[in-house]
């Protein structure tokens, strides 16, 4: 059974803290993605990676960074958390090759920044 796991389901942090969100997939997928999901806005792409140590900015990268040291792990970093980063964060992975491959999502991390 394919799986994408995220380190925390719920997280509460204070303004200014450094926050790490971890994502691990066991499908040997090349591509990994970080999205945030807000009511009425759908999913918005923050960063993605097509290979180890490779990263590309998505549509809303400001205030975030990422790290991909191993193929199976993709981390999202909030350098200095702010209240407007309170959101649901979803990680996804997909195999390379076909242009319209299915994205497999983790269960999400609901982050609250106070």
């Amino acid at each position: 059974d394919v799986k994408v796991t995220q380190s925390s389901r719920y997280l509460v942090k204070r303004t200014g803290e450094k926050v790490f969100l971890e994502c691990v997939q066991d499908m040997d997928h090349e591509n990994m993605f970080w999205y945030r999901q807000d009511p009425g806005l759908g999913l918005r792409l923050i960063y993605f990676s097509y290979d180890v140590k490779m990263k590309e900015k998505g549509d809303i990268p400001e205030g975030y960074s990422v790290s991909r040291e191993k193929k199976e792990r993709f981390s999202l970093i909030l350098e200095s958390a702010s209240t407007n980063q309170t959101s649901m964060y979803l990680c996804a992975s997909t195999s390379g090759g076909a242009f319209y491959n299915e994205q497999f999502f983790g269960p999400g991390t609901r982050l609250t920044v106070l």
Partner: protein
Amino acid sequence: TQLLEQSPQFLSIQEGENLTVYCNSSSVFSSLQWYRQEPGEGPVLLVTVVTGGEVKKLKRLTFQFGDARKDSSLHITAAQPGDTGLYLCAGQDQGGKLIFGQGTELSVKP
């Protein structure tokens, strides 16, 4: 920036009713996917449509991709409470990234 407008945003119906969710854009997409998300879980892929005019059926769900590949619809026949959830359309742009619609929150009451 390519945008996908999804409507309606909220839908509350009785069991047995039919419904249609629309996904529209002014841009052409290489393919379009429909996902369903249940509370506390990530989205799960229902279907991918690739060819303009394509129609796919998944039991009581019918998906259609517009001829010009700018719009899509999801029709559910005889909705059941188990269909309750958030439905998301996502178009794949020329670079391969997914552009998501805002989502449709469906509630089917027994």
